[in-house]
């Protein structure tokens, strides 16, 4: 493939390389600064002159900050736990609800199905900030403010997820459902034993996207949480900035650690993500 690309579209390859480099610059910049000592932190050098890993133990609260001789008091362990707990909960529930909705929208015939689906899809057009306040109000009524469920439940339902999986399920031949029906399967059996296993690439793709999305979510947790015990990493990082002024190298070390799990997840599952999103190629 790479050979082909190189031979046939040298211009395209160049453009992609350039774009890739451009996108990567801030990322490498972040990593580079995280290894710089305080004295170099604000310098424009691309690489640290004296590389040091000391920022990491400081951020992790294993060592005091040499500048102030005080511990930063960051609770990385707790934040990781919160982030993973919330992201995994959201992912699990969202994949489950989306796949059930997708099944209803793709495998069951009911009057007005496609109209309802279009209406449901139309909700994707509404920007999140518009529903932020009403959603928050609902959370207040439910007593979900400053709880895990306040972060997990509203994110457990997704129009995009339903859409993605519906398209996926539409590519599975309907004769499989009919064969299963004759074999004696109920809708639950068909969903659970036939459609879900066949929609696996789609489920994995949605799970990865949801996990990443939830991991990165910032504004909703910011609105919903005030107890530091519940903070995910995205909010936790804020404390660094506000309590100790701007210590760029510390922030960068903290940020690098924050994105590291995501990158690992992405590298491991990247293959599934690509496969899952190439829905056209799915055969039943």
């Amino acid at each position, binding site marked *: 493939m790479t050979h082909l690309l190189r031979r046939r579209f040298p211009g395209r390859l160049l453009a992609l390389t350039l774009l890739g480099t451009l996108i990567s610059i801030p990322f490498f910049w972040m990593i580079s600064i995280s290894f710089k000592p305080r004295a170099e932190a604000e310098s424009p050098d691309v690489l640290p002159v004296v590389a040091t890993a000391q920022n990491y133990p400081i951020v992790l609260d294993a060592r005091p900050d040499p500048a102030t001789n005080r511990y930063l008091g960051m609770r990385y362990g707790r934040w990781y736990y919160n982030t993973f707990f919330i992201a995994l909960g959201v992912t699990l529930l969202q994949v489950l609800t989306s796949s059930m909705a997708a099944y209803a929208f793709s495998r069951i015939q009911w009057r007005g199905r496609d109209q309802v689906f279009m209406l449901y899809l139309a909700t994707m057009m509404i920007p999140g900030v518009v529903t932020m306040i009403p959603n928050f109000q609902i959370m207040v009524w439910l007593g979900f403010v400053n709880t895990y469920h306040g972060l997990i439940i509203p994110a457990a339902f997704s129009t995009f997820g339903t859409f993605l999986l519906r398209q996926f399920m539409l590519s599975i031949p309907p004769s499989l459902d*009919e064969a299963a029906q*004759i074999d004696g399967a109920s809708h639950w059996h068909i969903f659970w*034993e036939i459609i879900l296993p066949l929609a696996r690439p789609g489920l994995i793709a949605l799970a990865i996207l949801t996990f990443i999305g939830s991991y990165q979510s910032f504004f909703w947790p910011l609105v919903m949480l005030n107890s530091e015990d519940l903070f995910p990493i995205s909010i936790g990082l804020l404390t660094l900035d506000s309590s100790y002024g701007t210590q760029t190298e510390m922030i960068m070390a903290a940020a690098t650690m924050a994105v590291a799990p995501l990158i690992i997840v992405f590298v491991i599952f990247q293959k599934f993500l690509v496969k899952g999103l190439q829905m056209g190629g799915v055969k039943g």
Partner: protein
Amino acid sequence: MANVTLKNVDKTYPGGVKAVADFNLEIPNGEFVVLVGPSGCGKSTLLRMVAGLEEITAGTIRIGERVVNDVPPKDRDIAMVFQNYALYPHMTVRENMAFGLKLRKFPKQEIESRVREAADILGLGDLLDRRPKALSGGQRQRVAVGRAIVRKPEVFLFDEPLSNLDAKMRTQMRVEISRLHQQIGATMIYVTHDQIEAMTMGERIVVMKDGVVQQVDSPVRMYDRPANRFVAGFIGTPQMNFFNARIRAEGGSLVVEGPGDSRLPVPETQRAALATYRDKPVILGLRPEDIGSAAAEQLANAPRIRAKVEIIEPMGAESYVHFNIGGTPFISRVDAHVTFQIGQVAELAVFIGKAHFFDPQTECRIETVSAH
């Protein structure tokens, strides 16, 4: 085992499209019935209605003594083999076959023994742990049949099961399904658009067109006595030749005045029926093997027609020769050793005793009832 009865069955789709109109058929226990017709004739719809995958608009469907109109597919005691096999791709052959039994909570040993038995019948013993992806088309179809037979249902439904196979495989599977029917003796309803499958497999054939039954008969009777022009043209390859003709009285007898000024005597058995058509047009139907074939040529006093050779298709043992007579093309099935030249005008014997006559308006068969 059970008989299947369809009474006044109608299917109209929302939007008013009529797929099946007033369908009546009684299928006795153990019979192999083939529904055949061109695409869109309603044959698959009918099968799906028997399966319960499609609701019926009117009428009754009975399996055994039970009216099954509102019975869900799983409780109809039927099994169906689909055109695209519909095997569960994520399950092995064994799991595919066992799925229905598992859902019906059969004991494990019983499932295993039934799967084994079916696998033996179909020669799938070595493939039980494979996934459908790793099987050839013919093997997949066999698994689909296996999935049906493990359940030991009252009725088997086949929806064009051989359409996705290559010609050689199709011939082989045709024989296998026929053998299976003899072996297990269950009632089978088989849908196809291929008249050769219908002829070779069916004990009875139902020819359909535009949702309406054209004829229900045994293969041989259907071939020999097609009820109308459509059936006559549909059953048999190459198809029956049709000529616009006119019945004339001549010397106290009747003759058929055909294309190219040909005059053929009306066979004695048909005289009574054709007497009312004197000086009226009819459609004369002659099968390719009844013009210029060895059998026709050997007849004493066979009437003859003169036609021009246009194309010759050698098939090995025989040749299909395309002729033209007075602007009407027709095909004759002749022995391969009889040589014709393209452009030659040949004189061909006609087996007039086997001629078919159809009314040009109704396209129905004209015949003397007592003759048969």
